[in-house]
């Protein structure tokens, strides 16, 4: 796609890390089921099989979802506005006219991936967020497109 910018590899790693934590939280359910099944000799085998399939599906989906979402995610900023394409099964093309932007917020990640940040474009309705871009890229985007309007270098 012409003019669209892809995220850095570290964005994929960040997404995988976050999804892994969520995955661990979800795995609590099958673990509890396995512990309960240990005391039920009649259905133990069946519950073991179901839990194994559940765990396998969760892990596979986490990895595939993170990878494909990363592959699809791209954005473009020009004189007219901001465009973001994101999503895997439920793909979304977001268009934000430039003159409707009221404020820009940059939020740095402070845990593990310190070189990543989110840029939030505040408007009168729902905010538009460019996620997981590197600090250098964020500064470059802000300098190129919004210097003197919302952004002053060296702040």
């Amino acid at each position, binding site marked *: 796609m012409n003019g669209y910018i892809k995220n850095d590899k570290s964005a994929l790693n960040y997404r995988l890390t976050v999804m892994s934590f969520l995955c661990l939280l979800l795995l609590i359910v099958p673990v509890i089921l396995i512990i309960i099944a240990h005391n039920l000799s009649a259905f133990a085998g069946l519950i073991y099989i179901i839990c194994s399939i559940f765990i396998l599906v969760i892990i596979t989906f986490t990895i595939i979802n993170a990878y494909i979402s990363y592959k699809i995610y791209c954005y473009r900023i020009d004189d007219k506005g901001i465009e973001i394409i994101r999503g895997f099964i439920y793909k*979304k093309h977001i*268009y934000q006219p430039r003159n409707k932007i009221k404020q820009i917020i940059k939020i740095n990640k402070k845990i593990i991936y310190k070189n990543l940040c989110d840029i939030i474009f505040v*408007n009168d*309705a729902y905010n538009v967020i460019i996620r997981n871009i590197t600090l250098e890229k964020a500064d470059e985007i802000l300098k190129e497109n919004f210097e003197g309007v919302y952004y002053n270098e060296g702040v």
Partner: protein
Amino acid sequence: MKEFKQSPYKYIEESVLIFFAASFFAFFVNYTLVDSIDRITLLEILASLGIGFGISVIFGIISGFNKQKIIKVTDNEIIISAKKTTAYKFEDLKALDTVTTFVLRRVGIVKVKIETEHRCIIFYIQKTDEQSFLNSMPEKILPSNFEKDKSLSNLKLNLIINLITVTINFLIFSVCILPAVLSLVAKSSVDIVWRLSAILYFLLLFWEIILFITRYIKYYRYRYNISGGKINITCGKLIKKSFYLNIENITAVYFSNNYISRLFNLYKIKLLTRGSGKGLIETNYFPFMMNKEAAIGILENLIPKEVIKAPLIRPKKATIFPSLVIWLLPVCFLLAVSIIGSFLFLLLLIPIALFLIQTFKNSGRNETVDYYILQKGFLSITRIFIPVAKIERVDAIMTVTCRVLKMTYMEIYLSGYRAVVFGGYLYKCDFDNFVKNINELS
């Protein structure tokens, strides 16, 4: 500078509501605990009311101890002092509503809602101060003299249509619910199913009757005035509301009719404003259906004549095939899974197909210089007029089926919280053109 103190009786209304809610809850708990309603004694009912009264008194005392608000109105701003002091400039004020309920009127209080750029402020002032407060408000939302418009006087027709709609809705609901209730009763002989269904029917019937009566009362108290770029409306008897709105702050205008009102050539208008997404500001400024001339007369005050008369266009290559595929594929999949031994379920596809064909016939769109016009609906057809200047963000959603058919589902975000218009399915190339036009216009 004028100064108004928030009335100390502001908590009375909440206390009354809490009294009823707590009493009902206490009675409900009591009712579910005993086996038969015959065993509930008067003492238990009194105990429920006592619990409700106790809770409401405690709430009232706690609420009454809240620090009092002081509202100061200067020449160009309104200052509200409570635990912290905030000033709102007149130029940021978007709309103003005043509400008095049956309870508030007894203690002489008016509830005032002010919609600003970012939030809605609510405070209570004395009834005697109301006129003085309204006079100190800026001219752009200042109330006018209300006159009853004769074009809205088709009361009998309105009531007949309301009654027909309410009855049909009730019948549809009954037909949908009755088989489920009967099947549950057939499977289990538990008495609770009958009890619950009886309560459900009673509540529904009660709700429909209340709706009907409130519409009837509302009509007699309804006054509106559209002039000088502002809309002023007052309505209601038990709960009296007054709306003061500047036309500039309207983000979308809905012009609709349903399957019954279409027979009588009656229409309804709904306005979307910046704060309406929060549910604090009313959208139903015109609660009655009106004849076409009256409706067009109101619309002409809100949007340009060319926009109202603009014909709807359907893209040349638009066919019903994509929408059939989009809707029928998942339905077919579900049916294929659920059909075990009977093909009668396939008959269900006929009404779905009819729905799609009719929806396709009703749909249309057009883009004028300042407005985007959209029409959609099946039984109730709605035409939406959106000022292009109010469009904040546009989203195109593409599911897997949509991607195969090169189509998108469009969502238009307007200025204001949760102000979203669902634009329906359209070709990706049409969506791109729409985005391009927004760019050129903005």
